[in-house]
């Protein structure tokens, strides 16, 4: 056993002796209780939190009858859930992006989902699940969930972009990671064909083990899959955001080179299926979920945005397409400055703000109209 591993295990033993699961659960219960008192939670999050608090209380009260390993795992599950909830107490949540992603998510996950958002101070986006109810139903059967089991999905996006939907296009790539993880797509692809389809020309040291090579292959496949996924919702703008952030990034063990990713997305958009894309579609078919295709229609927002008016979205394909169209519109405004509202003195910053605001209002109006018609129909 390696020294660091021994050290880690020793530390964990000492730590768990001092900070016992029971004590940690008390701390977590208090912390979640405080979250529940916030006025910024939605009704659904309040319900979720109340049920989680009931489950924690049940485990604390019945600890003696539950295996210590299960209690430890329960604690980890609740810890993760707390992290997700804690990131969602502010009223800064980007409601419009949540709305778009919830629409996209609905065709990939049949379970009830609750989306929470964590604003990050860095440049990172993420989209990850927490599923405490699956664990509780299986390992804490004494607690009656009464059929309540929504999946908690956390969006993570830079605080800087919370009201900049056009700059949040990367979330569709992250949604791809979520779908991949939830359905096991790229791992299934490794099962069906482990040959080096993704790392292709990456020079792996000859001393690397097969397992090491397969790990790198899997990491690259995940990124290619999510690039295709993002392109299925917002077209080439998804990869253009990557090019804007990391134009010349070379391949690493976790990510393909930006240039290779551009080529892969270009092939997908133009309908040229490479072996990897075909393998993904085979896996999606196997898992009985939709194949990746174009899920968006970019609406003609130009004449509306030129008049500084939001566009009226007709359906969900236009909803996703609005982001793609707005990305192009913004690029054109910045490059050519031809929109009628742009004056000689208008700065790039003002152009960005106007286009992002119009996009945000367009998405918000679609959501409000939907709620209105749902309410009217009820």
């Amino acid at each position, binding site marked *: 056993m390696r020294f660091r591993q021994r050290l880690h295990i020793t530390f964990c033993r000492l730590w768990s002796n001092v900070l016992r699961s029971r004590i940690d659960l008390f701390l977590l219960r208090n912390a979640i209780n405080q979250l529940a008192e916030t006025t910024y939670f939605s009704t659904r999050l309040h319900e979720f939190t109340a049920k989680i608090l009931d489950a924690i209380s049940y485990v604390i009260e019945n600890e003696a009858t539950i295996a210590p390993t299960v209690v430890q795992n329960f604690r980890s599950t609740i810890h993760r859930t707390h992290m997700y909830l804690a990131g969602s107490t502010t009223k800064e949540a980007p409601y419009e992006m949540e709305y778009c992603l919830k629409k996209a998510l609905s065709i990939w996950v049949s379970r009830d989902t609750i989306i929470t958002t964590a604003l990050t101070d860095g440049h990172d986006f993420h989209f990850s699940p927490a599923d405490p109810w699956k664990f509780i139903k299986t390992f804490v059967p004494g607690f009656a969930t009464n059929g309540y089991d929504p999946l908690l999905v956390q969006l993570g996006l830079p605080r800087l972009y919370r009201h900049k939907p056009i700059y949040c296009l990367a979330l569709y790539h992250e949604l791809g990671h979520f779908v991949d993880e939830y359905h096991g797509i790229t791992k299934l692809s490794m099962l069906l064909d482990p040959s080096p389809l993704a790392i292709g020309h990456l020079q792996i040291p000859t001393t690397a083990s*097969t*397992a*090491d090579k397969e790990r790198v292959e899997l990491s690259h496949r995940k990124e290619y899959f999510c690039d295709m996924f993002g392109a299925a919702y917002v077209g080439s703008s998804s990869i253009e955001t990557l090019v804007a952030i990391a134009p010349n990034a070379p*391949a690493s*063990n976790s990510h393909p*080179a930006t*240039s*290779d990713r551009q080529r892969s997305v270009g092939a997908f958009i133009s309908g040229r299926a490479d072996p990897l894309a075909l393998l993904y579609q085979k896996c999606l078919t196997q898992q009985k979920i939709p194949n990746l295709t174009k899920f968006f229609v970019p609406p003609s927002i130009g004449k509306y945005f030129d008049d500084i008016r939001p566009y009226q979205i007709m359906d969900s394909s236009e909803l996703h397409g609005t982001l793609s169209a707005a990305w192009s519109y913004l690029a054109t405004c910045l490059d050519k400055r031809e929109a009628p509202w742009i004056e000689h003195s208008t700065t790039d910053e003002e152009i960005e703000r106007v286009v992002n605001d119009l996009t945000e209002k367009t998405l918000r109006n679609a959501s409000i109209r939907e709620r209105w018609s749902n309410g009217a129909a009820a």
Partner: protein
Amino acid sequence: LKADSETIRWAQTIGDAVLAAVPRELSQHLNPFWLTLRLVEQGRSDIPADAARHFDDIISQVRALLQDSYSHSSPISPEVVELILEIRATEGLRNAIDSLPKLNAIPPEIAHNILSTMEQRLAFAD
């Protein structure tokens, strides 16, 4: 496709140490399998019925798929996929899984051996 020179130069500089830095961790999907086996290893007689049923079901699906070369018509659970990948990458794991009885008849030492074998692969990267 040919790599550009920058990529090749970069690739040539990476070695085993860098490769070993790719994270290896137990996935969320495999956690129920691992936890159930851990309870068997500990000799617990109170393993929840749902956990035991789930474990036996997963093992049964894994065996079936290993025999029919993954030509399966219904969706394959991510947990099954990951367990098969583990089996493929871990020497000795397939024999151990093949000879497993139902969960309630698995001796603690067999559970211990399987967990040790899997954990060796998950050994921390330096």
